[in-house]
């Protein structure tokens, strides 16, 4: 690719992807709460309404079930909606249309239809927004066949995966960590896609595989830099897509390093860590393991308001360093 590469924030990268998608295909349009003149709660749509008008950047009433359902219906009948939830937590109000309708429609109708809807979910904790505005619910949707669920961790991936999502014929759910929106990184101009269903090895290493998602990828990389100085060589796998999961990349990595740790912000149990661990336990990589698998996830509690408690509730870089060190040194 010889396109010009600039530094963009994660939010700007998403905005650029949406603009490109709308320029390329007039069926693409945006729906969501306060995405027009307000620019979106996190300023991701920004001033797109000025470029594309209120016909294609549509403010909905505060009606998540209805709004998401309308997007599903429009997608079913030829349009290409990108629906923004103001916070991922509000998916709870729209579960019916996503889980019972969008995910199953193609299957129930024997392949006669498809639902090319894209839904975007600002997710995660760290903003002091307390228990109803800080959750990481991606595994809920990851449990539903018929949906694709992605968690880009860099501005580059955010743009490329959104464009892949728009081009995808099936419903794609994008979980965007709110603390990533301001993160900057290199993003090429113009159209490109990053495939859904493909993990990325963000750092190669010999001693330990850390499978991380979303904001935990950067935290794992930061931890890996510290551990390197201690002679511990960490491989960081950015899962990027949780459904369908790229099993092979994880299996190959574990076969190489013989140790696995999963790091994610969502509540630890019954989530992505369990899935990745079980997948490895079921695979040929199991025989290569030199130590028990470790999961580092969110505490078994809602996200508290108090900032110190909030931080203590999700894995931080020092937690990753300690857990990785113990794992590699065999401390249990």
């Amino acid at each position: 690719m010889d396109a010009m590469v600039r530094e963009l924030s994660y939010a700007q990268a998403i905005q650029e992807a949406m603009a490109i998608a709308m320029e390329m295909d007039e069926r693409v349009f945006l729906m969501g709460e306060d995405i027009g003149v307000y620019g979106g709660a996190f300023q991701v749509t920004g001033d797109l309404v000025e470029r594309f008008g209120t016909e294609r950047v549509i403010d909905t009433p505060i009606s998540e079930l209805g709004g998401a359902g309308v997007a599903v219906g429009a997608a079913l009948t030829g349009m290409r909606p990108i629906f923004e939830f103001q916070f991922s937590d509000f998916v709870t109000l729209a579960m019916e249309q996503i889980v019972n309708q969008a995910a199953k429609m193609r299957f129930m109708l024997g392949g006669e239809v498809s639902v090319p809807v894209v839904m975007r979910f600002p997710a995660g904790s760290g903003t002091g927004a307390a228990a109803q505005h800080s959750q990481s619910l991606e595994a809920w949707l990851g449990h539903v066949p018929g949906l694709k669920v992605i968690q880009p961790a860099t501005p580059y991936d955010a743009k490329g995966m959104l464009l892949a999502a728009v081009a995808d014929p099936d419903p794609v759910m994008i979980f965007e960590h709110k603390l990533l929106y301001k993160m900057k990184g290199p993003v090429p101009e113009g159209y490109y896609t990053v495939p859904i269903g493909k993990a990325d090895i963000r750092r190669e290493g010999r001693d330990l595989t850390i499978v991380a998602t979303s904001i935990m990828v950067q935290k794992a990389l930061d931890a890996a830099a510290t551990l390197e100085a201690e002679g511990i060589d960490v491989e960081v796998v950015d899962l990027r897509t949780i459904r369908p999961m790229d099993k092979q990349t994880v299996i190959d990595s574990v076969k190489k390093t013989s140790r696995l740790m999963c790091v994610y912000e969502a509540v630890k149990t019954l989530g992505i860590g369990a899935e990745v661990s079980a997948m490895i336990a079921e695979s040929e990589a199991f025989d290569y393991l030199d130590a028990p698998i470790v999961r580092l996830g969110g505490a078994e509690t809602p996200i508290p308001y108090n900032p110190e408690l909030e931080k203590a509730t999700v894995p931080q870089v020092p937690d990753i360093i300690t857990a990785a060190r113990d794992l590699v040194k065999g401390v249990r």
Partner: protein
Amino acid sequence: MAGASKAVADSRANLPFVYRQYSAEQLKQVLYKMYLIRRFEEGAEESYMRGLIHGTMHLSIGQEASAMGICMPLGEDDQITSTHRGHGHCIAKGAEVKRMFAEFFGKTTGYCKGRGGSMHIADVAKGNLGANGIVGGGIPIAVGAALSSKMMKTGKVVVSFFGDGANNEGAFHEALNIAAVWKLPVIFVCENNGYGMSTSTARSTAVKNIADRAAAYSMPGVIVNGNIFSEVAEASYKAVERARAGEGPTLIESKTYRHRGHSKSDRNRYRTKEEIEDWMSNRDPITLFENELREFGFIDDKGIEAIRSEVAQEIADGIEFAKASPSPDVSETGNYVYTEQA
């Protein structure tokens, strides 16, 4: 509610509702609380700007008469569910500002022990079942509380506060229908401040008045000027009587305005400076009430001054209390997820 004596009442016969219904002392107390709400929010706003409070908050400055008017006829046992813009409701229902500040500062002495913050402020002992981070989230819960009242024969009336934006959530419609069919002692109070975040009711809502929606659920739909304390209190009084008599729910639409932006950051691009200015200088609920009190002889300038300085003191003390209170220990993050059992 113990009101004005017969002789006093006669002399006030031509005055608006609250001046006939309540004593001078009670009305002065209302003014005190309106100021308390305003200064509390100004104090919270300032603390936020100075980085003493994190997260976000939604200020109800400009809507004080609505909160106070609705809560006026409620007893201490009656209950409310509130919203993300709920500081006023909380104070109107009897909360202490020092414990509210403590919550905003994330302290153990706060109403939610530092776990909830502004968006989940509550005072269960005083009947405030909590603000809510989910638009419309409290409406069915209020109906449930009213069902408890009916089944347990406690005589409690429940008020559900929500905004104009919330009336487009399915929960609103489902809850109103259930309450009407089961004739529950609940009052739905839509504080229509013209906007749900940036979206005006004209762009979000198919009916001109939210109160029009009451017809679909066979309950009275009442519109009041939410910036005139007496109007709000009168509508609430009637709705409470109806609820207590077992006649079922009422929908009150209290038309008002928020002076501040939606939340901490808001460029106000969806409304004009002139519009904001007009509401602030010509329809401020505290000024309107104060002027009436003065005009009808319930208070003089000295009395008003006394209230203002007492409020200022309570606010200053509250902030000090919050600052001096302990933070929860990080070893306690797991508390309150489930009910503690011996």
